[in-house]
């Protein structure tokens, strides 16, 4: 029967691209190929994509209602954000989070636990980078579509984004946000291994992003001590950064630099986790 927490053994959950991706005579980097293949995969499943985007829209509508009511109750501004600004904040923050697959930590945990990762180790490419490239490919499509829908909705309801200059930076910031999120989840998958419960780990991770990442509410609403905690942790790079750039003023380009720095750290952590996982598999068998 099944193997406890990790689910049925056998085929892993990772649907990564094959390594040898020769395109038209040239050899494409396997990571680029994985990225493209993943993006293609998402587009070829319009039903799933539509569900995700519908979900995003519902949350957007709910939060739009909540924050407009909140702004109205406090005389038009909450922690320096106008009602329209809050709307933009939520649009971008949600999009950055919705872009990542909900079960990712669970899936990674399953693949590590069942040893499906072991088969990936046979290929002459890094298991981790291939996976990240692939996940980024999928997320990029979702992010683009969510931002498109969100922008259309919010522009119609609340007008143009308050911080024009910042809004331009928001796009690369959103990409960095998603990348950081993905890297962190791969690092967290290691925790899933120790807790023996990937679902619970993902659940808690998600709350950290929601709360300390500023997805649910801007960091400026936190009491001072909590705001300090949030700044020390990497979660703000995953939602707050692009949202703040879009909705807040003055523009803070240094956020992008900080995001990039955190991305490197998180990717490093993920690399350590995966290396440990691979070592474990080499020693203990798949």
């Amino acid at each position: 029967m099944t193997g406890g927490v990790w689910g049925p053994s056998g085929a892993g959950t990772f649907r990564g691209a094959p390594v040898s991706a020769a395109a038209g005579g040239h050899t494409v980097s396997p990571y680029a190929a994985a990225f493209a293949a993943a993006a293609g995969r998402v587009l070829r499943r319009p039903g799933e994509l539509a569900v995700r985007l519908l979900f995003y829209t519902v949350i957007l509508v709910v939060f739009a209602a909540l924050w407009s009511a909140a702004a109205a109750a406090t005389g038009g501004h909450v922690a320096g954000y106008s009602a329209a600004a809050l709307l933009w904040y939520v649009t971008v923050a949600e999009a950055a989070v919705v872009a990542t697959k909900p079960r990712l930590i669970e899936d990674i945990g399953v693949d590590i636990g069942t040893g499906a990762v072991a088969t990936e180790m046979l290929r002459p490419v890094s298991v981790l980078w291939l996976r990240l490239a692939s996940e980024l490919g999928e997320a990029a499509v979702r992010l683009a579509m969510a931002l498109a829908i969100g922008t259309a909705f919010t522009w119609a309801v609340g007008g143009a984004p308050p911080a024009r200059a910042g809004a331009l930076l928001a796009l690369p910031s959103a990409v960095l946000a998603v990348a950081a999120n993905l890297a962190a989840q791969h690092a967290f998958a290691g925790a899933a291994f120790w807790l023996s419960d990937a679902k619970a780990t993902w659940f808690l991770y998600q709350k950290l992003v929601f709360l300390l990442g500023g997805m649910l509410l801007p960091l400026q609403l936190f009491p001072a001590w909590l705001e300090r905690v949030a700044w020390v942790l990497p979660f703000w790079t995953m939602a707050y950064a692009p949202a703040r750039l879009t909705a807040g003023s003055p523009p803070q380009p240094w956020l992008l630099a900080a995001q990039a720095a955190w991305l490197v750290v998180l990717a490093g952590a993920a690399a350590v986790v995966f290396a440990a996982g691979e070592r474990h598999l080499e020693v203990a068998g798949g």
Partner: protein
Amino acid sequence: MTDVRVLLGTMRTAVVEAWSNRRSFWVQASAMILNDAAWVAFWALFFHKIGQVRGWRSDQVMLMFAILATVTGISMGLLSNARKLGQLVADGQLDTVLTLPVDPLAYLLVRRVDTALLGDLAFGPLLFAVAAHPTPQRTALYVLGALTGSAVFVSFVVMLGSVTMVAGGRGEQADLGFQALLILASYPLDVFGGLTKLMMFTVIPAAFLTGVPVHLVDHFSWATLAAMLGVAVGSMLLAGVVFRAGLRRYRSGALWTRA
């Protein structure tokens, strides 16, 4: 009519099963409790800077969340199969149940318990006790509200899941439906505009999960109570009808079952 004792016995076995893997039980229940705590923290932070929203203060929202947690604890924790009805049909579990001398819907509903969601069932009453000024009257109304809210929730997802018996699939429409229901029920009712609010009283009855119960506890009236009970009973009856209709179609082969 399947013996109530048999159904209770089945639910008891399901609880025993969830309890049997002690470690998993605590990990999952704790994760849920932490999750709920995070949401409470969110609301606390929200109201810290924003005094009230459309007549809702921190108190009401805590009451709302306590009711929500209790409702999800019952509807997704104790009766965890309700929202998985579509999957169960697709996997042939309905066939297995049809070979037993029991009422298929009742048995399916009590057959499995979700450990994680039981955490909600612990958190909800706790939050009520701590943050919602429990008096005997308020407590009784809270319990009543949670029970009727659960009845509406379960009925709703059962109706959606029953579609699988006729149209096939794995119950994805039920997933969407219940997620929408849950999201809408997680925020103060009066935050929503006219059209959405109307929807929440009809097509996606989220208002009856938290909004109306909160109102009942804070401003008791016999009319509200009667309305809530009416809606709860009505939705249960409707769910029964829809399920039986689906079952008739299923058994007469509207769906190509794996031969």
